[in-house]
């Protein structure tokens, strides 16, 4: 499974969206379940899936899927496979 597939699976699982709703430009405001508890959940999910533990500030600053990709890329996790 590529990192992008892992991220898709994580987003679907954490926010309970339909897999067809997933896209790289998906924004927090597009997802009703990306609420304050969702911020905590995605933080835990990122650590479980990619081994990087975002700080609370980093987790709060994530405004969409692209921000997650950018954050993880900056930590050496590649999304260009």
């Amino acid at each position, binding site marked *: 499974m590529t990192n992008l597939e892992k991220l898709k699976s994580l987003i679907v*699982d954490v926010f*309970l969206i339909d897999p067809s709703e997933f896209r790289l430009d998906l924004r927090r405001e597009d997802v009703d379940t990306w609420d304050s*508890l*969702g911020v*905590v*959940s995605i933080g*835990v*999910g990122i650590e479980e899936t990619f081994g990087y533990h975002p700080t609370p500030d980093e987790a709060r600053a994530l405004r969409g899927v692209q921000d997650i990709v950018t954050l993880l890329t900056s930590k050496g996790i590649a999304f260009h496979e």
Partner: protein
Amino acid sequence: MRIIKETGGPETARVLDQAWSAPETFALLPTKTSLTAEWVEQALGAIPLELQSGHFCLFTSGTTGDPKMVVGERRRSEKLACVLHAVQDSEPVKETIGTLPLSYCFAFVNQWLWSRVSQRKMIHTHGLGRPDLLLDVLAQAQQAMLCLVGAQVPTLMEHCAGRCFPGIIRIHFAGGRFPQERLLDLARVFPSAEIFNNYGCAEAMPRLTIRRAGEAEVATNIGRPIPGVELATDDSFALVFRSSYRAVAQLENGVFRRITEEEWVPTGDLGHRLPTGDWELQGRANEVFKRYGEKIAIPQILTMVNRQWRGSALLYRETDAMGEEGVVLVLSPGPTESHVRALLQAFRKEQPRSHWPLRIESVAAIPTLPNGKPDGKALRQSPGLQVHWRQRI
């Protein structure tokens, strides 16, 4: 004091008949019980002299697992059986079919004592322990009354698939959640049956309210108090009652105490009175709690789950990694991936995230107490517990 150990079936009923006619107070012990002989001996030893005739003692371990003894007065319970006959419109009923242990207050009063007082026949079965025999009895039933707990419905419906039992004309539910979402299924299997939601507790010995199934659309509506019963709530919405038929004493947590005429007795549930005059349950006092500042009511979550899931569903409480209490949803039998997906979509659509379960698990069969209610304690240790989804928190 006479101790009657329930052996199941007509033999227990015969012994009970004799004991009821004799002056001496007796105690009816369940077949399967976690009560130790010492506990029972101590409990019975606490009964004062004035209650040692004309009374009877029943025991409950309840869903909390804490043993309790309640002492009932025979005269009052006979009066209740007569009241039930009237409010449950039982005159056309010719027989009642037992599927629950007689030591369970609901079956004891609503079936055994009712059949004695109204001079109707009681047919004993082994309940869902021997579904083949039960189905035979149901097939031969004539104008019969059935008393069930909601937790029996998924299994009963499985066994009854494709069958129809027009001889059942009344079905009474008590002891746990009313299966409002399965009324159509029940009507297909029991087309002549009028279905009732009965509410009460052991201290009430046991009935407090009743409603006909069609009179409300939600499982939590328990209808109105029966004659001789008053309901009220205190400042924290704890549901309390006064009843002419209540138990006269109880022993709980090692303390024996009389229940007086004037006192408001806690039911252990939270509730409120609706503008229609009906009463609605918000859950057991320990089933309503705050999670991340939001009020969680387990019965409301179960109502949503039961709209999506036809098998058994239970919720138990657990603390998450943030130290907040949440619930774990257990399904039985094991769901398919699409079932889980549908449930999760329903949670997404209908409930804020704080109401989502911490996990969705399944077991092959929900462990039950002897009275047919789910055994919450055993559930957590069930072998083969499978996790289907979990919140990452």
